[in-house]
């Protein structure tokens, strides 16, 4: 792992009226690392994800992203076209509900190819070839390339969303509860798939989840949030096996067999 962070946030604060969503949050992420952000509902996990990815501006603090040439960019002051370019090539976003990300009236192949075409791919054969390749990587039958996503099951939709996101080989992917709303066996298969792909491609991931088991399975490091603050952070096993903060102790003890 290199010494240089991929993304670094300092002193992030955000309030929604009287509610503090983020209070003086510092986050560091190194290339190829998986960081899980856990906490109960309303603890500011998703707000943190939105601020890190530049979709939501913080009241105070800054997010720095290091591009492949080693240059640092302030995510919240960079020009909108540059941020959008980042979002459609170097970065990816996986939503809990794949319908938010997918185009439901466009075939699976078109969905996977969209990011390629947005980046300037103009060769139909190549785009289709890559779409087939990625469908196979996420274990969707290549015959279904021309089917509409609405004919897909929930687990398949989530896998299609992952293929669509990873097709441009992003360096950083934000995931918001990627396994939420799926049944246990489908969840296990999806986690396996995410772990395999992310490890093989060396993608850095910020993963938001309320499920400690998911965090333990996927993440290298973990950050525990409570009422907008990061109350404890460290290596996943360390934090989960020997929690220091009372809230983390409560969180870990409240999960069966975590």
């Amino acid at each position: 792992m290199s010494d240089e962070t991929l993304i670094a946030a300092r002193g992030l604060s955000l309030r929604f009226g009287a509610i503090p969503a983020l209070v003086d949050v510092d986050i560091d992420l190194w290339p190829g690392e998986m960081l899980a952000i856990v906490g109960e509902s309303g603890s500011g996990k998703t707000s943190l994800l939105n601020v890190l990815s530049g979709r939501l501006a913080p009241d105070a603090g800054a997010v720095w992203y290091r591009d492949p040439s080693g240059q640092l960019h302030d995510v919240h002051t960079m020009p909108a076209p540059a941020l959008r370019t980042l979002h459609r090539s170097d970065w990816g976003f996986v939503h809990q509900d794949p319908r938010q990300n997918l185009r439901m009236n466009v075939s699976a192949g078109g969905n996977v190819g969209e990011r390629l075409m947005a980046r300037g791919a103009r060769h139909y054969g190549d785009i289709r070839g890559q779409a087939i390749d990625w469908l196979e990587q996420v274990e969707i039958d290549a015959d279904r390339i021309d089917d509409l996503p609405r004919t897909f099951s929930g687990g398949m939709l989530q896998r299609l969303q992952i293929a669509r996101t990873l097709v441009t080989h992003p360096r950083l992917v934000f995931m918001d509860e990627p396994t939420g709303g799926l049944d246990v066996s489908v969840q296990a298969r999806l986690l396996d798939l995410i772990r395999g792909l992310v490890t093989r491609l060396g993608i850095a991931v910020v993963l938001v989840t309320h499920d400690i088991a998911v965090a333990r399975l996927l993440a290298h490091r973990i950050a525990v949030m409570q009422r907008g603050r990061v109350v404890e952070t460290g290596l996943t096993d360390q934090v989960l096996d020997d929690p220091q903060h009372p809230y983390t102790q409560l969180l870990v003890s409240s999960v069966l067999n975590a």
Partner: protein
Amino acid sequence: MKGYNFAYLDEQTKRMIRRSLLKAVAIPGHQVPFGSREMPLPYGWGTGGIQVTASVLGAGDVLKVIDQGADDTTNAVSIRRFFARTAGVRTTTVTTEATVIQTRHRIPETQLRENQIIVYQVPQPEPLYRLEPSRVETRRMHALSDYGLMHVKLYEDIARYGQISISYDYPVLVNHRYLMSPSPIPAFDNPKMHMMPALQLFGAGREKRIYAIPPWTEVRSLDFEDHPFRAINAPYPCGLCGATDSYLDEVITDDRGGRIFVCSDTDHCSERQAAGHVGADGWQDAAQ
């Protein structure tokens, strides 16, 4: 007060439209909003085009109006008569004589010149509207030139039909920057917009948008490297003048399956006939 209210619109309105036109010419392909006025014809009949024409028309201009390529259909005749009456300008059906050409659905077959202006009537100026329902979002896409979605539509066409199935209103990229709807002209006419010597103005009355292509501007039809843009036309010569390079209309001649293909550009066809060109069905006409 001589000259006041020349060409139907009041002078303030024309100034407003001209300001939008100047901005549109300065940013080729970019949709500029304007305060569209009520016109004495329904939306969809060319309220945008007629306002643009009224704003650029001068006393010395010669006006030609085309509807689906023809000079003699209701819309063309009415608009031509409207300006003959409200502006007193000379009108013509001959493409080479005209200085201002208002058109719906076609570009004349005759190559236009530098001292001509062509005004298109546009029903829907937003090329992305079938793909992205939010105008806020489409404006953002234009601002960031984020046009991957349009290519997704072309991809879907090829995946489903084996070819790009858009036969009219085929999206173009103007000056390497803005995605633009060329108005519902057939894809056959798209190549004519590329590096055209004449000024091209587009008016959408109901949608209150004006856009333009300055002379000698690059206009590229979107396509894929391995599925290049093709101009589609009926594979016949014109039945009246024998032309093989002009856009054809299919005309049903009887109720027993009889049909002929004739030039959609009536001026082009009659000029060729006057020059002695005769098509396969032209002889029959003469015999009858």
